[in-house]
């Protein structure tokens, strides 16, 4: 009985911690660096730096226009 109760508490705590963790991850996710990383993964061939120019330009734009407003 005690173990069952303990398990329940444990599950509640774990869910709570997961929730906190996920919100913290979401908070930390949107930066110009992460957007650049995502751009490289999704759009451009990392092995060809020439193709990454648009991602770099996007990074520069993000730093100039977007980040000061976050």
């Amino acid at each position, binding site marked *: 009985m005690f173990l069952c109760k303990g398990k329940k508490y444990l599950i509640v705590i774990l869910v709570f911690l997961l929730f906190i963790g996920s919100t913290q991850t979401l908070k930390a996710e949107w930066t110009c660096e992460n957007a650049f990383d995502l751009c490289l993964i999704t759009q451009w061939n990392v092995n060809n730096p020439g193709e990454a120019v648009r991602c*770099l330009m996007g990074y520069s734009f993000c730093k100039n226009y977007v*980040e000061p407003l976050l």
Partner: protein
Amino acid sequence: MNNKKKKFKVFLLLFFISLVFSKAQDVKIKIKEVLTIGNDPKSIIFQWVGLTTDQENSIYITDLKEYSVKKYDPDGKFIKRTGRKGQGPGEFLTPGPIQFYDGFLYIGQIQHPGIQVFDTELNYIKSIPLKQPLISFQVIGNEQIAGSMFMGNKIQLYDFKGREINAIPYIQNDDFMLNAVEFRINKENLYICFQWKDIISKLSLTGKKIWERNILKVKKVKTKKIKNFTLPQDICFKTITFDCDKNLIYVLGGHLSENASRDIYVLTQEGKWVDTITLPEPTHTIHIDSENFLLSRSEYGTLIKKFKLIFNE
């Protein structure tokens, strides 16, 4: 006796010269907010990026989120819009820098090469093809466009057919993206501010350095390695412009300013600091019209603020 008189005259002359000189440095500048544009449903702005004014001080902006160009009168009344998403004539994917020159508007895109030309009624006129996107550009007469590139160490000059005709080198090294600059060409000189370096300089049009200033006292910006790239973290300067009668230079600071993206450093033509203006809100760019009104960004780029520059001498 004659020698004494001569010395006295020279002393008087130097005294008056120093008086005039010190007065030039004693200019203090204040701003007074006079207008907000974009806060009524008719004049709605989704996110403006580029801004320019014509000879009558009508205001033109590029709206990144609406793929459009918009025109307002000097009092902020919405006049007209044009543009839509696309890659054809009069269409945009990332509308960005805009400049009024000699009756026409020249509009570039942030990540796409080429410049489109419109008249002041926002009718599409023609396109100027370019090989690569420009950070900033300036039409400089004789059907020439000067542009700064994302990676490079020179200001490239193009004709209106997009052909490279000349270049002004502004730094010798090839420092990946750290040499990116915003610039203005005024009379016989080139003025540049580096995005990722604490450098503002004035050069001749052949690239000879006249002066260089380090306002922020930052030796090197922090970098972060992401995959194969070492990226700079903090912007030093965002844009450079002039006023209309004082001939002063205005440089907007970035992350590393005391008030990030709000401090505007004002310098004389000789590179002497005269004052720092602090805007109430961060901005990505500034523009000064022909009546010395300063325009900047407000509310996440959905509004334009117009300030009067007041000089106390």
